[in-house]
């Protein structure tokens, strides 16, 4: 798999296109990397492999953005949060389909995938979080 899918952020987003949440594991020390890195930053090995993560995690923190960059202004106000997946791996993202008054740190959220892509560089597919 590594031949077609190098251990890069771009590969992570290619997996998003395929509706998969993928991280990288070091074959030598078992360290997990999310975002993926081209070298294990614990033992410096390049013996790496892709692993698929469970799609459900726990909300660590959130905010409601009212002043947004131009690309996101049409969505204001929108919620963003940081979600912890298995093995302590974290990702930030936009939380959809959840009224602000129902949001709570510690709640379960699942990652979902959006077929639309960013309309500016980098043109990756998008992921987001939603209630379980």
């Amino acid at each position, binding site marked *: 798999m590594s031949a077609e899918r190098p251990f890069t952020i771009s590969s992570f987003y290619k997996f998003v296109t395929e509706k998969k949440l993928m991280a990288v594991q070091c074959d030598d020390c078992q360290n997990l990397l999310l*975002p993926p890195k081209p070298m294990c930053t614990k033992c410096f090995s390049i013996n790496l492999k892709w692993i698929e993560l469970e799609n459900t995690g726990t909300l660590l923190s959130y905010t409601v953005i*009212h*002043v947004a*960059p131009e690309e996101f202004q049409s969505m204001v106000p929108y919620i*963003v949060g*940081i979600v912890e997946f298995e093995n302590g791996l974290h990702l930030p993202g936009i939380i959809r389909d959840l009224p602000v008054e129902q949001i709570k740190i510690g709640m379960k959220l699942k990652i979902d995938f959006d077929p639309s892509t960013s309309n500016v560089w980098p043109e990756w597919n998008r992921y987001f979080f939603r209630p379980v």
Partner: protein
Amino acid sequence: MSSKPLVSIVSAGLSKFGRHEEHVGRELFAQATKEAFDRCPRLDPIKDIEALFIGHMGESYEHQGHTGPTLADWTGLLPKPAIRIESACASSGSALRTGIMAILSGLHKVVIVGGVENMTHRTTAEVTEFLAMASDMAFEQFNGITFPGLYALMATAHMNKYGTTEEQMAKVAVKNHYNGSLNPKAHLQKEITLKKALESKLVAWPLKMYDCSLITDGASCLILTAPEIAKNFTDTPVHVIGSGLASDTIGLYQRETLTSLKAARVASQEAYKMANINPKDVDVAEVHDCFTIAELLAYEDLGFCSPGKGGNLIDEGITELGGNLPVNTSGGLKAKGHPVGATGTAQAYEIYLQLTGQAQKRQVNDAEIGLSHNVGGSGATASVHLYRRD
């Protein structure tokens, strides 16, 4: 005190902070150096100054890169070596560290360290985008997370874990606006009420407009020398006795915790150890209050209180001008303003004034030990410096 000076500050300068429609950054830096030269008549800039180390975040603001030689030219210091140092909002804190290294190495005996940013001619949307470049492009910017958004994520986590309140954050703004009202060089020289802060427009909940620092134009500089020659230039040098610098992940989401900046903890421990002092020895501090929650985190990361107790320090008035440990006497980034590349050495400038008794209406009585704390991004860089009067 047993601490040994690393370097000595023999002069310092600061442009007026604010909106400078008719100036570009290099002209503001010339204003800051002019003040530093005037304050130090025994210094011959052309003969004595050997190099410039300049904090400057980005060419996006002015479409001007290659800042080092530009500033050497505008300050009459060509052909001396002049290098730009970039660590986002901690750029000039890092430039100060670089100047210290240059002197400690023995390569140079007298250098200028400083910083500049010229931001107000850009729209808020543009500045928001330029500042966001100091966050993780691939996961934070890609998901529309702004800089206030990153600090809001820390604030929400702190509120959830420790019970910190929006009112405690607003009190930081009220304090720093009061201090700024006493500083003739501050961008905003007006007091605000707690009610006004709490009722201001939402930026990224729980942060409101008055929880956020200002987009500002400005420049700052220090003249550093080897301690053994400091008295050639001034009778009242201020000694830098500790310097800490540390890094962390570019993405906030990758950190071990959202309620503390590890880089700031590591940098402060390095600085305290070097200076051989404890947090309780500090008499006056300038901390990186880019957002009000950042000041509360700084109290905890710098060891002024235990984790989670930052809100108590502000409630008890300890960090007010008349308190036991005045913090951000200049008005901080919140009221003095935050021209990002200039901020680190502007903090050092305020400490220099405090330790030499030149802080006028905001003078802290008998201040002997000072601290500055400068953070880049959401905490991927932190620099902490400790100072002692002669």
